[in-house]
């Protein structure tokens, strides 16, 4: 019985699984080889008849029971669960808007409870100035003013002025005042105003200061009653 080794490839050729160079080669071979041409004709004839097979449509009752049985495998949720699920997973625009409003409202209410209003805030928290820096400034100012208020002679003041530069304190006062103004921290601004006046007087004390002038500065400090306020602010900042 005559046979050709290309015969097996006719299946691939018939089903269109051959392309490119191999396709032109096999086409050329079929045109030359009567065995393969005959085999291809038979394949086409047979598969042509087999293609006329029409799969009957399954019975409706069978399909229905089949689908029902399959759904019992993965236990489809009931309609209300599906509806609830669709609301949660794929919410409509209205639901999303309601969600957004609820989140904003919640944020507002939480904000009201968690964060105190500016009037109730301690000075250092209200100010953008670092609490530690402000405390250092207040401490140095307090020390200088205490020394000034309690000194008997100028040389005693000069001793403390070696450690604390009164001019520097004045500069710091002006900077802090600017910040307090921008921050609308009225209380701190008012305190710094008073401190600036007294620090100017202290910085103006010279070697040749008279006892009368010295007594005047000491009296001014005492009259201002500023120490309790300085202490209070420092304590608030520490806490």
């Amino acid at each position, binding site marked *: 019985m005559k046979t050709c080794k290309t015969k097996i490839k006719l299946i*691939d050729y018939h089903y269109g699984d051959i392309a490119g160079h191999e396709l032109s080669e096999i086409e050329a071979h079929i045109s030359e080889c009567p065995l393969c041409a005959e085999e291809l004709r038979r394949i086409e004839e*047979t598969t042509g008849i*087999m293609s006329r*097979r029409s799969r009957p449509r*399954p019975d409706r009752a*069978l399909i229905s029971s089949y689908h029902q049985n*399959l759904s019992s*495998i*993965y236990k*489809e949720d009931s309609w209300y669960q599906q509806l609830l699920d669709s609301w949660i997973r794929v919410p409509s625009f209205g639901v999303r808007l309601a969600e957004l409003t609820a989140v904003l409202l919640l944020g507002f209410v939480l904000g009201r409870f968690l964060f105190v209003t500016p009037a109730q805030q301690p000075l250092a928290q209200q100010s953008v100035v670092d609490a530690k820096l402000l405390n250092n400034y207040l401490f140095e100012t307090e020390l200088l003013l205490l020394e000034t208020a309690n000194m008997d002679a100028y040389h005693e003041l000069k001793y403390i002025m070696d450690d604390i530069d009164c001019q520097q304190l004045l500069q710091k006062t002006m900077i802090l005042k600017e910040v307090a103004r921008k921050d609308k921290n009225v209380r701190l601004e008012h305190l710094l105003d008073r401190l600036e006046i007294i620090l100017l007087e202290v910085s103006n004390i010279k070697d040749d200061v008279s006892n009368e002038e010295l007594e005047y500065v000491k009296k001014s400090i005492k009259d201002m009653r500023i120490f309790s306020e300085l202490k209070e602010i420092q304590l608030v900042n520490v806490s």
Partner: protein
Amino acid sequence: MADIDQKLIQKAQRGDRRAFGKLVKKYRNKVLYLAYDLLGNYDDAQDVAQSVFLRVFSGIRKFKGKSSFSTWLYRITVNQSIDFKRSKYRRSSVSIDKNIQNEDDPMPGRIILRDKEKDPLERLEIKDLKEKIENALDTLSEQQREAFVLRHYHGMSMYEISKILECKPGTVRSHLFRAINKLRESLKEDENMQN
């Protein structure tokens, strides 16, 4: 398509039954029709398709994605169909044997093939082309039928079929070639018988 399957499989592997349900809905008809093409009737095909999805449901966590989901699903369908066919063949042989024994058959224990039950005269009465085709398909061996059905009626490539049947593409080609030859002979024989 494969991406959607991938996402659904990942969800199903995490226990999402809705995702598994979507996979079932997508493939349930394809599995039913493949089982029908392999078994020849819808009652058996339905039983097989259900067992396929039960098997997929219990084994989805083990699916590693080395082949596509459809290839894996069709492989299970083919295997389940073979198992069903064999177990049904055993059952029917036993029941026929019992009947024969009840009727005092002189040859108890004989194996009776379905095709051979048909009388030649009865076969001659089959004129309908559809029946001729179904008969021709019935003459194919399991592997020949699987290869032919998957290639001819489900449009799968040689490579896909080789993955489903777990053999080389060359073997699939060989099964297919033999299947077509056998079908031609069967159809020709049927034609001659009718004439």
